């Protein structure tokens, strides 16, 4: 037993919560063993503090002061008002929509498709775990991943058939509408067949003032030559602590385009771990983060170029007001075999206040010699000359600022090819910018 135990009260409470709920969590004997191992591993690590390099700017030990109990599942969870939570445009998107409420599948709608469409399969994780068709994997020593493996209650298992072209997106909606503070843990497994094309949207939203700790993981494998747009909206509100992890495995010559829109989390950590598994694949991330007040949003990437000829692109933008803190960490590893790697990374912050903080940490670890890798980071205020130009045309100062801020932060969203999704997310950005004054007097 380690005498220098990293465990504090919060970790103890999390482990006790696990002991209480483990029996009710879905899964066969193998899954139960993985969960036990994961929580055991967590017990030796504890919540990471800023002394752990990867957590230097997001000190979970300092920030998570109470362990919320895993949400108890009841049949009576209220049907959420998706129009309100997502915005009408997103709520009414023609899509295959699966809605999870407080970590449990509640409703589904195949939209314009039929349930037995041969192009795809979708089932609830709790069933897949119980039948053993999905194996839990705790992964490495990443703490959010360990906690996710230990506590995951449900999520979606999506398989897109080889060569299939899905003409409508698959929209996974995760709603927290808790009446009391609680923790919600969801987990998705997505398998995109060779040559398939599709769009997956994950919307993480919440209602009510109850404090919530959400942990959401998505394990996605993109087959050879497939083309995937994967969008994540995070809008669980300032009373949420969100730990999000995407594990991405990319096959040969595939194109994977993730887009993140993060709005006003109390504390958010969006992690993306990317492994290039086949040559010639493209990873093209666009991320936009909006924070104000005392909010904290962290985007951390680890991109592992293991094989030759792959392309990675990351465009990260954030708007910060109040005393908010945004963090961008982008680690790119180019292994000795990964010749002809082409990597570019750019992180840009727009500071609307003097008290906001942006921490940007690019890391390149390059072990191959024939590669092109670059990164850049900027932090700016609104351009006074542009503001004057707009005001000279009669646009009042606040509106001019909003217009320029929108132009800055909407750029990553503009990359979405699907106009309905793009406009829905742009609408959310405009709503965020317009609602600013109320929360920041």
């Amino acid at each position, binding site marked *: 037993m380690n005498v220098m135990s990293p465990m504090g009260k919060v970790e103890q409470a999390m482990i006790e919560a696990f002991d209480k709920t483990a029996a009710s969590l879905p899964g066969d004997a193998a899954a139960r063993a993985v969960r036990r191992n994961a929580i055991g591993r967590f017990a030796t690590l504890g919540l990471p503090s800023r002394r752990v390099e990867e957590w230097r700017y997001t000190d979970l030990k300092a920030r998570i002061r109470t362990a919320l109990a895993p949400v108890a599942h009841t049949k009576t969870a209220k049907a959420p008002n998706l129009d309100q939570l997502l915005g009408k445009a997103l709520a009414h998107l023609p899509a295959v929509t699966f809605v999870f409420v407080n970590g449990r599948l509640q409703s589904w709608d195949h939209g314009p498709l039929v349930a037995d469409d041969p192009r795809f399969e979708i089932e609830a994780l709790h069933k897949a775990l119980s039948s053993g068709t999905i194996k839990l994997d705790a992964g490495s020593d990443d703490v959010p991943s360990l906690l996710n493996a230990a506590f995951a209650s449900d999520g979606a298992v999506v398989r897109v058939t080889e060569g299939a072209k899905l003409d409508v997106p698959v929209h996974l909606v995760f709603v927290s509408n808790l009446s009391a503070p609680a923790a919600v843990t969801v987990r998705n497994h997505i398998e995109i067949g060779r040559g398939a094309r599709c769009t997956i949207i994950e919307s993480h939203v919440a209602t009510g003032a109850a404090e919530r700790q959400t942990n959401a993981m998505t394990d996605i494998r993109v087959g050879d030559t497939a083309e995937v747009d994967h969008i994540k909206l995070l809008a669980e509100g300032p009373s949420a602590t969100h730990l999000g992890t995407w594990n991405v495995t990319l096959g040969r010559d595939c194109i994977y385009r993730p887009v993140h829109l993060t709005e006003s989390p109390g504390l958010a950590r969006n992690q993306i771990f990317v492994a290039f598994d086949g040559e010639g694949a493209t990873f093209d991330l666009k991320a936009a983060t909006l924070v104000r007040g005392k909010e904290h949003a962290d985007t951390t990437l680890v991109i592992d170029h293991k094989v030759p000829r792959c392309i990675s692109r990351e465009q990260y933008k954030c708007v910060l007001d109040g005393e908010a803190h945004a963090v961008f960490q982008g680690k790119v590893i180019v292994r000795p075999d990964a010749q002809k790697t082409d990597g570019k990374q750019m992180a840009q912050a727009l500071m609307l206040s003097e008290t906001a903080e942006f921490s940007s940490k690019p890391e390149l670890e390059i072990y191959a010699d024939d590669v092109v890798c670059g990164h850049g980071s900027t932090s700016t205020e609104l351009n*006074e*000359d*542009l503001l*004057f*130009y*707009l*005001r*000279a*045309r*009669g*646009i*009042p*100062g606040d*509106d*001019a600022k909003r*217009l*320029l801020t*929108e*132009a*800055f932060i*909407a*750029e990553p969203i*503009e990359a979405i090819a699907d106009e309905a999704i793009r406009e829905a997310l742009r609408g959310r950005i405009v709503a965020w910018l317009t609602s600013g004054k109320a929360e920041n007097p």
Partner: protein
Amino acid sequence: MMLEIKNLHVTVDGKAILKGLSLTVPKGEVHAIMGPNGSGKSTLGYALAGRGGYEVTEGEILWNGESLLEMAPEERAAQGVFLAFQYPLEIPGVATMTFLRTALNAVRKQRGQEEHSTPAFMKLVKAKAKALGVKEEMLKRPLNVGFSGGEKKRMEILQMAILEPSLCVLDETDSGLDIDAVRIVSEGVNALRSKERTMLVITHYQRLLDYIVPDKVHVLAMGRIQRSGGKELAVELEQSGYAEFTGWAA
């Protein structure tokens, strides 16, 4: 609708640029301000529009008898002041149409007028754009991004035509333009000349004034109006240059 500038002193970064400029432009007239580089021509334009960093230390600017100096740039725009920029700025991410609509609705609101409906606005912009040779494709692009020098200047005049200001200040509208572009832009400006609209045309060269024929010409040098005269003064300056004025005040 008269512009009266009285003993205007303006400093930029602590440096005095305008040093007692006085000028009166009666309603409906077009006056040209000519002068050498560095004489304070652009500073005059910015001081009229209310740009930050252009500090008025003395004197006043009256428009229709009201002082502009206490007004924010957007309030001046609502009062009818329009500065056509020498170097129009590129605004990535803001579609030209969105910008035009936001600006027009903002000034109409401040002037107590109703906003245009979308179809009425589109019709208005398309008609004015066509008259100025602004392609519809340009209206869909972000404002001024990737536009040529001539296209940017035409876009300035298009904005002027749409916002219908009563005081137009044109800052070196001819700079960087070839002769065909000067003609197109000038035709656009001339189409806006009216008894209700006062114009101040700032230029280094007489060339522009062949197209936009002024009622009066003023020579600005060393921060003050050194001489005023009729349109023939511009021709005279083209031959003699500005040496006389810069030497005189040194």
